[in-house]
């Protein structure tokens, strides 16, 4: 039981910091878009506007909007407001980490084995189920996926060594 986190005052990153971070991120994105557009050519050629013409102005508008959002984040967002408390963020990370491993694993071992692993991790780690139930779900669902997608809808999905060994 995690009693301390329930009794303690909610703490976590400030909403303002995250807002500022997002505004800076969109500003950087804008600069990348502007740089890319300049490379493609932002002005007119003999046959009309060049490829970078439209994205250049898009980039400029993102930059302007980001600056306004940045200023508003600094002025308007109260300092005490929390983005989320640490318990909440821990829950978000507990999804993100397995998900990142899952995504990396797909191109390596194929989607079926990776999915079985993802379901098992979720059920064991977050749901605290018994091994029998975990095994049942994490084996049954990839098989259902295989039947529905590969057999019925004829959608080929990424496969790894095990599927090759089984002859698919």
């Amino acid at each position, binding site marked *: 039981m995690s009693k301390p986190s329930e009794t303690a005052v909610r703490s976590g990153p400030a909403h303002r910091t995250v807002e500022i971070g997002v505004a800076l991120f969109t500003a950087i994105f804008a600069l990348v878009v502007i740089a*890319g557009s300049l490379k493609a*050519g932002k002005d007119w050629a003999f046959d009309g506007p060049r*490829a970078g013409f439209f994205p250049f102005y898009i980039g400029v508008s993102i930059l302007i909007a980001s600056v306004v959002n940045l200023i508003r984040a600094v002025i308007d967002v109260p300092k005490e407001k929390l983005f989320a408390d640490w318990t909440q963020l821990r829950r978000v990370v507990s999804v993100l980490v397995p998900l*990142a491993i899952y995504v990396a694993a797909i191109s390596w071992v194929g989607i079926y084995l990776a999915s079985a692993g993802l379901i098992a991790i979720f059920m064991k780690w977050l*749901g605290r189920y018994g091994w029998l139930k975990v095994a049942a779900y994490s084996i049954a669902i990839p098989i259902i996926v295989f039947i529905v997608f590969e057999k019925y809808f004829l959608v080929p999905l990424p496969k790894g060594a095990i599927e090759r060994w089984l002859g698919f």
Partner: protein
Amino acid sequence: MPRGASTQAIKTKTMQEIANLFGGFATVLEPYNIMLMFIGVLLGVLIGVLPGLGGANGVAILLPLTFSMSPTSAIIMLTCIYWGALFGGAITSILFNIPGEPWSVATTFDGYPMARKGQAAEALTAAFSSSFIGALFAVIVITLVAPLVAAFALRFGPAEKFSVYFLAFCSFIGLSKEPPFKTIAAMMIGFALASVGLDQMTGQLRLTFGFTSLLPGIDFLIAVIGLFGIGEILLTMEEGLRFKGDSARLSLRVVLRTWAEMPKYWFMILRSAIIGCWMGITPAGATPASFMSYGIAKRMSKRGSKFGTGEIEGVIAPEVANNAAGTSALLPMLSLGVPGSPTAAVLLGGLLIWGLQPGPLLFVEQKEFVWSLIASMYLGNIASLIVVMTCVPLFAAILRVPFSIIAPIILVACAIGAFSVHNSTFDIMLILVFGVVGYLLKKCDYPLAPLVLAIVLGNNAEESFRQSLLASQGSPAIFWSNGLVGTIMALGLIALFWPLISNGWSRLRSRPAF
């Protein structure tokens, strides 16, 4: 043309449209299509019931599955998923106080208190019947208005086309409840993402920075699955959802009693349907429509002060409006090629993949397809009503499956959906990135709908913009060159500055009172 001949022409045209509609009904009523309809509705209600799996995302994941079907069958199944999701959102709102979809938030205000008072069955019946009435109203509007709009829009040149896009995007900025500069930032990011890859007009590469994975561009389906799918799961996880709620079974007696009570509220229903249609056609969407309808009903009703404690009117008003809005969002998509909601945008993307160009020409070149789609809207909503009325216990039971089992299954579905768009594992990595971005943007009040709409429409908007400028040798005066384009652009500017205008107007009006 003499007057008699022209009324005669209109008459034959209307007759032709009715014949087309019946042809559409015949197509939809084929057993295969009826089966797809019910599968679609079942999947849709499931999507509507499960938090973390929304309409736009659900349709996006299932879109690649329909590539092997005929466009007509595919659109029937996909729109039925959408109807199902529109209906299903109410189930969780009423039984669990958890809106399955953002547009059913307003339904929780009175729906959940009703369930607490032991009137869950009444609330559900009212919600489903209202959803049906709202949707039906919108479908009738589509049947009558869409062909007229399309016929009118046939005369549009590039400048007029661009002005319609301009109006759509300006209404987003002016009418959404999010801060305008955040809406602009989100929307423009969408446009920027749309322009990655090959430039359609010059054939030149741009914004790829040498990454070969970026050559085909960023598909909007990937963005939708990441932003709405993964992002939503992260948000749900943060809230740490625990489902606690009432179970319900609809008995015929309760259904009939509730139906007998509903005609009393005919005026409110009509008003909510009109609000819904209006908000759906202008791309404000179903969510604000449901709130606005609830707010107005609260102000106008005799029992307004009791709203929030479990009034049936408080369930009817938002449900009529959100389904009317969700359905009528397809009107501008079909007739102008401008979708009124993210899900409509995904459907539009689907049409493009099947080689159908949505817009006025669709009504001329693909008559059979358009009228089958419209016919399927009528039948799909009837199917939805049947499914939700009979399957409430089933869906309530699904909700009791813990999130730690449902979440990984949704994530696997997202990965499969993302992969099957282009058979690329790079896209699966992209949905993770979009997921984190979506989570952060959503938490910071950036709207995601305009971002998605901009990715879908970016290339078309850019093309019409550049074509117009080509025609005018670079002078922006072309957007004011005739009455039509000038009017639409002016409407766009009014929508853009609407908050300022309405603010100034109310100040002017309140001045003499002092």
